[in-house]
């Protein structure tokens, strides 16, 4: 875990004092809202439908117990006792009072956290694979470079007024769990001839014009990475369309100019700025890397785990669904589902946060991760501790065995909170999860990603869901459009639109028809929905969606 240096702490403290004074001046009437709004957004403070919302960055999704406890404390002290974890590894508080926000920011600073650059046209929170440092398939831990990028991008003077927001994600594995192809820049750590470097992908993004990122450079050496990334952002900063905010993201720039043209411009810029990186970044990187050294894993028997696995069917079901392979023998990665059936995806109560902090401290080398799929991860757990952990999770509504299943839904806050939303997301997610839990079908269905966005901006990643749902306002009524066959992994793909949307009442039955069609069509129980879709395409699902509904209506 990286801890703030004196410089980091001083910087955040100074920003917090500045913001405290800005809030005071706003309340006293010395600043108008037009003057104040850019200042509050720079500090992650939005105004939503029912209240302000404070978005706090969780860099590369990594927390320790002290940070998680402080998030719980803030939820209790200044909010309504819960927080919402987002698809960009942030936590959002939905009910802060303007006058309390400076105190909230000071409380965050006490545990090396802040809300800077979680909004506005800047480089946002750098996200990473939530299995970082633990995954069996990892080339290298992506967090040190993510931290290097965080430091480089925070208050970067050239990049405070970009054409639009800019998002970077990093993975250390070939298996992409960080959706890097749907980011402005996606970095994949690769090894070539024994040397560690980066495959750089640019121009991915979802939103109103979804694009899959393209490889701009197959191998950038470690010492060239910061100047290379700076060259990319710099080229876009000049070239990006400031005339039309819908065309301002780098995906449009890459699309309009072509990847070869952008590559040539980046090379040219890189050659100019490379000499100005005198190696300080590499010295810093070495220090950061040391802070992320792996814990000392113990080599002890796992008999307790095996016994529980054999004798306790509830534990077995949870273990089968919620554990992932760890690189150390005898260890597992624990995924704690924040998707209990019928609850709000990504929400955790303050009490649950404290429980997870305690578990991390006691059993998990004091490490926690937030996934872009809105779950919490204990990355390093010895298998012999799993039965005890499961027992505690169960008591606190945190033992739902549904990771990767149909009820493990990504949903943005939608019109229940968000001022930009065109329809609600949360109730749709709640109803789908509840319905398939009633049907007792979700383990039978297997690997299935449903992703729901409440507007075209696609915070809920609907384009890359196996089933994507987009909530729209059609003539003053909530309407839900379906896409199928999206993929969020290294084989990223934008889903295909099925046709006309469905009302809030009709969307859950529509999802059911798709699922039953899949169960009928799959070649065997081992063929996943994604594979069946790849084999058969849209047609049979479209027919199930629309023809069956018509046949039913005609009866």
């Amino acid at each position, binding site marked *: 875990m990286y801890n703030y240096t004196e410089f980091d702490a001083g910087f955040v403290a100074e920003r917090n004092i500045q913001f405290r004074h800005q809030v005071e001046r*706003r*309340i006293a*009437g010395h600043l*108008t*809202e037009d003057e104040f709004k850019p200042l509050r957004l720079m500090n992650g403070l939005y*105004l*939503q*439908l*029912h*209240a*302000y919302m404070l978005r706090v960055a969780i860099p590369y999704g990594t927390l320790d117990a002290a940070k998680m406890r402080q998030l719980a404390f803030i939820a209790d002290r200044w909010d*309504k006792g819960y927080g919402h974890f987002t698809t960009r590894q942030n936590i959002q508080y*939905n*009910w*802060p*009072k*303007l*006058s309390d926000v400076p105190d909230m920011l000071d409380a965050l600073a006490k545990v090396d956290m802040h809300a800077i650059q979680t909004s506005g046209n800047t480089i946002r929170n750098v996200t990473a694979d939530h299995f970082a440092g633990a995954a069996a398939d990892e080339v290298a831990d992506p967090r040190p470079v993510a931290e290097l990028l965080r430091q480089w991008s925070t208050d970067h003077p050239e990049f405070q007024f970009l054409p639009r927001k800019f998002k970077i994600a990093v993975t250390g594995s070939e298996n992409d769990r960080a959706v890097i192809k749907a980011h402005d820049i996606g970095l994949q750590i690769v090894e070539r001839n024994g040397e560690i470097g980066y495959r750089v992908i640019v121009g991915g993004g979802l939103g109103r014009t979804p694009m899959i990122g393209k490889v701009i450079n197959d191998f950038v050496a470690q010492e060239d990475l910061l100047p290379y990334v700076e060259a990319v952002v710099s080229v876009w900063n000049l070239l990006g369309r400031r005339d039309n905010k819908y065309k301002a993201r780098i995906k449009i720039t890459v699309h309009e100019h072509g990847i070869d043209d952008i590559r040539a411009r980046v090379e040219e810029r890189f050659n100019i700025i490379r000499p100005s990186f005198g190696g300080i970044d590499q010295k810093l990187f070495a220090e950061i890397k040391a802070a992320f050294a792996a814990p000392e894993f113990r080599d002890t028997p796992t008999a307790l785990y095996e016994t529980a696995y054999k004798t306790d069917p509830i534990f077995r079901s949870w273990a089968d669904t919620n554990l992932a392979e760890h690189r150390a023998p005898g260890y597992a990665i624990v995924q704690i589902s924040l998707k209990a059936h019928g609850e*709000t995806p990504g*929400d955790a109560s303050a009490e649950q946060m404290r429980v997870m902090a305690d578990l991390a401290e006691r059993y998990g080398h004091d490490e926690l991760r937030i996934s872009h799929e809105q779950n919490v991860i204990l990355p390093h757990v010895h298998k012999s501790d799993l039965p005890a952990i499961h027992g505690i999770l169960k008591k606190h509504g945190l033992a739902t065995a549904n990771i990767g299943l149909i009820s493990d839904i990504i949903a943005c806050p939608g*019109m*229940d*909170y968000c001022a930009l939303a065109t329809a*609600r997301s*949360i*109730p749709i997610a*709640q109803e789908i999860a509840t319905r398939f839990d009633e049907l007792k079908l979700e383990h039978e269905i297997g690997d299935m990603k449903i992703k729901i966005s409440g507007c075209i901006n696609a915070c809920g990643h609907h384009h890359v869901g196996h089933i994507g749902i987009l909530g729209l*306002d059609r003539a*003053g*009524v*909530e309407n839900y459009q379906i896409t199928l066959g999206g993929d969020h992994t290294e084989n990223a793909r934008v889903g295909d639109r099925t046709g006309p949307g469905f009302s809030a009442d009709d969307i859950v039955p529509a999802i059911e028809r798709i699922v039953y069609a899949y169960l009928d069509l799959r070649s065997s129980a081992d063929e996943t929905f994604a594979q069946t879709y790849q084999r058969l395409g849209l047609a049979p699902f479209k027919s199930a969606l629309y023809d069956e509904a018509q046949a039913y209506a005609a009866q």
Partner: protein
Amino acid sequence: MPKEFSPKVITANALIEGDVVYLTADDQWTRCLSEADVLTDEADADLRLLQAEAQSELVVGVYLTDVIPGIDGPQPAHFREDFRRTGPSNYNHGKQAELNNV
């Protein structure tokens, strides 16, 4: 013929709490839509909007929104405004928890 002016209320968010407020007939801000002043004259609505916007020490994001006048006071014409006057659907938070009659 110009389009007929549909009835409206003036709404905003309170500066400190951020919650939804409506302008009353005596230029106060209320948390209850039922107490909002329904504006039926376009010129009057535009003027009241300008005056409301000037109260930037009290409110943020002032705008006019359509309502349907009724016996229990104005009702929201659009579902977004219905959520704003009620609160989120996943928890009993916001207006629905704070007000006895919304």
